[in-house]
């Protein structure tokens, strides 16, 4: 990356730090999930909530409801050579019937400037959950695919991606 991107990157980090300090009322970054006000029964393999941005997504989108690993498959490369183009495949075996279906898929990249990269809102007319696209990644981090059903269940899969070239500037 050229040096011309350094300034915006620094100011972004400063903004993020200030924002998190203001929201938490303290200066510390990387608090435990309890201090960030997120209640969820984390499994042993589940990634921690790493920052206020992800904590806010969990609060605003999921209201602190439990998220269980399962019924979702998030496929991404273990190593992304170019963070500008990282393939993502999200699939689920959840039914797509009018009575019970996956109504929303949230793709979260923990350390991206905008962590909630995409939301995919579906109806039973799509027949199954099978979405693929290409995203940008700033650096190595956890990626989360969280599926919400029309009945309010939350299912997830997580994967770690190592990024060689920053794709966000």
């Amino acid at each position: 990356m050229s040096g011309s991107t350094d300034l915006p990157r620094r100011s972004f980090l400063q903004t993020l730090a200030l924002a998190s300090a203001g929201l938490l009322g303290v200066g510390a970054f990387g608090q435990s999930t309890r201090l960030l006000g997120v209640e969820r029964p984390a499994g042993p393999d589940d990634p921690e909530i790493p920052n206020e941005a992800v904590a806010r997504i969990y609060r605003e989108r999921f209201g602190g409801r439990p998220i269980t690993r399962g019924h979702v498959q998030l496929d991404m490369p273990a190593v992304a050579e170019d963070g500008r183009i990282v393939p993502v495949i999200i699939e689920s075996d959840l039914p797509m019937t009018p009575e019970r279906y996956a109504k929303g898929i949230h793709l979260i990249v923990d350390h991206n400037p905008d962590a909630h990269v995409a939301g995919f809102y579906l109806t039973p007319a799509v027949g199954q959950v099978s979405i693929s696209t290409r995203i940008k990644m700033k650096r190595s981090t956890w990626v989360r695919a969280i599926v919400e059903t029309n009945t309010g269940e939350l299912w997830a899969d997580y994967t770690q991606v190592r990024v060689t070239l920053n794709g966000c500037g």
Partner: protein
Amino acid sequence: MAHAIGDARIRIPDRITRGEIITVNSIVSHPMDTGFFRTKDGDPIPAYFIDDVVITYGGDEIARFEWTSGISRDPVVTFTVRADREAPLTMTWKDNKGGVYRQSVDIAFTQA
């Protein structure tokens, strides 16, 4: 490859039978600028990205995607549709500067 912003293509299978779940591939030309980069002269490149995608089938909205500049340049997205009637499938992409781009394909069943 001089595609204009908003040029879009949707691809569906050549042969479709009634009730089949088909895979739909799509691509739209768009810079998807994050707002974090600068030109060689140091001028900031403002954020310019598709933030909303609506998919209709026979006029009914069947899916909607909420995007950010975290989607790669020239966005591709693949999804499925249960082909239960002969009707147009339309995708409408909207960007944060008011641009609206639309593309359609007709879902028709293979004659036996």
